[in-house]
């Protein structure tokens, strides 16, 4: 390896941003959301509202993990599409399964 390459790698190491504040902020948010989930689970609110709130909080945690911890926001569009495929397919399968369940219960009537 030439001296030029060596210097370049040194520069690359020195230029690496210190990501701790962003990671620590995301970690604090994840902990806060988890505590909020526990509060919502025991809150005296109607069941549909609790389920909606819990599902929303879980989605917020998943988004934080994907975008910040797994760096998906910095990836190319093709990789984002690969990663987000299950988020589209899983609800589709759920709908198909629900229709199948309804069909079996009602006998197609």
């Amino acid at each position, binding site marked *: 390896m030439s001296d030029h390459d060596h210097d370049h790698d040194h520069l690359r*190491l020195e230029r690496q941003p210190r990501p701790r504040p962003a990671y620590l902020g995301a*970690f604090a948010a994840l*902990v806060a959301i988890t505590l909020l*989930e526990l509060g919502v689970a*025991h809150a005296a609110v109607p069941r549909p509202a*609790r389920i909606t709130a819990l599902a929303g909080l879980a989605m917020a945690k998943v988004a934080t*993990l*994907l975008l910040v911890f797994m760096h998906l926001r910095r990836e190319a569009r093709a990789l984002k599409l690969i990663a987000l495929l*299950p988020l589209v397919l899983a609800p589709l*399968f759920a709908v198909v399964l629900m229709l199948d369940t309804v069909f079996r219960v009602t006998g197609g009537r």
Partner: protein
Amino acid sequence: MTSPAAGAASTAAPAASPAELERFAGAGAGKIGMWIFLVTDGMGFGGLLIADGVLRVRAAAWPDPASRLAIPLAAAMTMVLLTSSLTVLLALAAARQGRPRAATGWLAATVGCGAAFLVAQGFEYAHLGGGAAALGLSDGAFASTFYVITGYHGLHVLAGIVYLGTLLVAGGLGARDGQPRDERTLEIAALYWHFVDLAWVPIFTFVYLLPAR
């Protein structure tokens, strides 16, 4: 006149060079491969959670999770996994900055968190399986789905411990002579570990917290 084999060879696309493979989607083959694996694995978890939902909706009665499961313990396990996601990120950051000792330390902390999670899960299973109101694997749809989903996730945690533990034991983290070394290997392993954490999020919500009908 050229032979058919030679003609086929001349029309075949040239093999992609490592540099070309590296450029696809701005990531290397290993990283893309891991993402594709995680997508398929995520579908597996999705299938189990959908099955849980269908069984729950169709069941005549479904126990309130809070009355059968230890929610505070599950919350503590969640915190442990979240912490492990942070420590593996700090290991990766240290490796990129050429600090192998720090990277090794953070990676060891990650493996320790994973082991703590599995110990807590073992304690939870032992607690549920004992006593007068023991919850066995075949004690209804609630028990079956609970053990299958959490057990499937536990196996992923175990696989992650082996994966990261291998990196830890084999060494090769961080930098040598100022050069980043095996940073990509650690990045790919970190992706898997984050997925283990990510998969636990819907399990904690839908298995432990979602109220019964």
